[in-house]
């Protein structure tokens, strides 16, 4: 096995987000990557527990996952979720979990560069905007891989008012997605407005939580503003444009 695909809770369970998991596994299939998933043995990485303050639950989940991964002699991991990515990259090593981890945007970028994943000849496509997930961009410095993939496919990117290091949160992180009490305005509405203000056709992103938040806010803004912006994950876009060699 070349790499373990860590699916994460969001893309495993959420009906809408499962399309990210399907798209990415199809991409790996097309590029003949020898991969596997942990299936039901995979547990939440504990990101949300740790950030909500439940350190013990986080550590129990982390230890269980590290044990499972070691039992299966996993060396290399690819994730579709930037939160899972961040945990493996930055927080699991303190608990003995040293794995080589890649986010799927970097992974796809490498597959294309190595010629393993064949993309169609570059042609002019629509104008899009890219929303940097906090845990991929600002917190782990990955700004270029997702943008490069889109550009290699021929998309033109217009940046939002806040992007890269200054990217504005979608509102889902740190357990905020599960706080039901509504205080103030919704954060994703602000970001949705920024996205619509670019005039682009689509908001691209590379985090399941961001996709959910952006789709929700842009969906309702489309209603009030009469616009027609779509939200898509980069894995979905790449999968739609590639075929098996």
């Amino acid at each position, binding site marked *: *096995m070349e790499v*373990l695909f860590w*699916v994460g*809770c*969001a*893309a*495993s*369970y959420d009906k809408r987000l499962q399309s990210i*998991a*399907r798209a990415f*596994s*199809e991409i790996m299939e097309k590029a003949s990557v020898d*991969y*596997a*998933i*942990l*299936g*039901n*043995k995979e*547990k*939440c990485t504990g990101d*949300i*527990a*740790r*950030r*909500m*303050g*439940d*350190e*013990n*639950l986080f*550590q129990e*989940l982390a*230890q269980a996952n590290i044990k499972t991964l070691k*039992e*299966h*002699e*996993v060396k290399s991991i690819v994730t579709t979720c930037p939160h899972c990515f*961040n945990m493996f990259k*930055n927080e699991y090593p303190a*608990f003995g979990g040293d794995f080589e981890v890649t986010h799927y945007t970097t992974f796809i970028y490498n597959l294309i560069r190595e010629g393993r994943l064949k993309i169609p000849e570059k042609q002019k496509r629509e104008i899009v905007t890219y929303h940097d997930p*906090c*845990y991929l961009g*600002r*917190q*782990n410095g990955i700004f270029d891989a997702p943008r490069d993939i889109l550009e290699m496919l021929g998309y033109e990117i217009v940046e939002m008012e806040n992007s890269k290091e200054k990217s*504005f*949160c979608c509102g*889902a992180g*740190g*357990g*905020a997605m599960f*706080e*039901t009490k509504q*205080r*103030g*305005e919704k*954060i994703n*509405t*602000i970001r949705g407005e920024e996205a619509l203000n670019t005039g682009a056709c689509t908001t691209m992103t590379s985090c399941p939580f961001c996709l959910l938040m952006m789709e929700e806010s842009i969906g309702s803004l489309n209603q009030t503003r009469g616009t027609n912006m779509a939200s898509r994950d980069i894995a979905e876009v790449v999968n739609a444009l590639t075929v098996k060699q």
Partner: protein
Amino acid sequence: METVQRDTFWMISSNYKLMMYIFAGIAILVFLYGFYRRFRLWRRGVREKVRWNDVKTNLSYFYQTAIAQRKVKKDKLFGFMHRFTSYGFVILFIGTVLVAIDYDFKIPLLRGNFYLIYELVLDVFGVLFLIGLALAMVIRARKIRPRLRDGMADQAFLLLLLLIGMGGYIIEGIRISEMEISHAVWSPVGYGLSVLFQGHAIFSGASYPIWWLSHAVLAFILVAIIPYTKLFHFLTAPLNILFHPVKRTGNVEAPYNLEEMTEEERYDSLKIQGVNKISDFTNWQLLSTDACTECGRCDSQCPANNSGKPLAPRNIVTKIRDNMHHDEEVLSFISAEELQSCTTCGACVEACPVSINHIDLILSMRRGLIQNQVIEQEAENMLVRLEEQNNIFGKPWSDREDWSKGLNIPVLSDSKKVSDNQKKEGA
């Protein structure tokens, strides 16, 4: 031929000289007490040792953040303002230290060519210092940056610094005009003023000692108030940046490791590892709050703050700082709602020019909330279901791989089987 050297205490009577030394002594004592007062409070925190090995690698970060001021520079206008004032301040401070070495410690430094260059450098940086201060005062007076709070005190600090800078030039100008020094052009500003001062009684040799003493007194007032005001960041910001930089916001430091603990310790860890009161923070966390200048960059970037939620990262920092002296329950001055509103996006930490880790502070206190079972019902249910079903949605753990059914996706249910199958296929 006239020797080129600094004539310290020109025209100053022994009474004035004595007064200066007395003021200096008082100012230094007040400063030291003020420093000790905060130092003692930091020490109440959980002790976190200085990791000297890290300090070496922190040096480049220190250069970027404290010297090149990369983060301050992101706001261009402020970048100029702050670099002018800070570089000016540091150079003028070094200049003053050199005078003390030259005169008080009788080590002749300010002589000959070195003295001429010294005069020129100080004159130039003094101008930058004053321009920076004027810029800062205009920015505040005209409310050009809404993130700044209206503070009379802030304007007063700037005015104090401005008066000290201008006073220095006035006494230099009078000295040059009275002494007719041949090398005066090396102090271009002082020289220019000396020409203007000719024939004005208020800028004559007779009034010189008054100017001189007022300059000294203002400078000593500045020294004395540093550890009691936000000017303390002159010291605490570089300290925090060097010893506790935030290089990556995505990493939460492990407060403890359950695996390395006995059952008893696990029970104790619950008591000490979340922050419930001030002394539960680490000493470096407490020091970091003293580096805050209330610039508001964090608030201006915070998604919770921008969407009208009860969280303002600056308030979190200043409330910890201002309540440090009485070791009370954190919840008596920071509400659970504030802490629960954070998305941990890291925009505040990224924006902070003095390397405060707001997320780290907030998460420490969130751990405290969980210990005290201060949590909203929905969030608690979510954590309980997460523990039972190992996923954030609380759906059955055995449904996790259902999405992959029928898609021919290899599942590592037993590693040996998978790798064996692959070997067979390969063969």
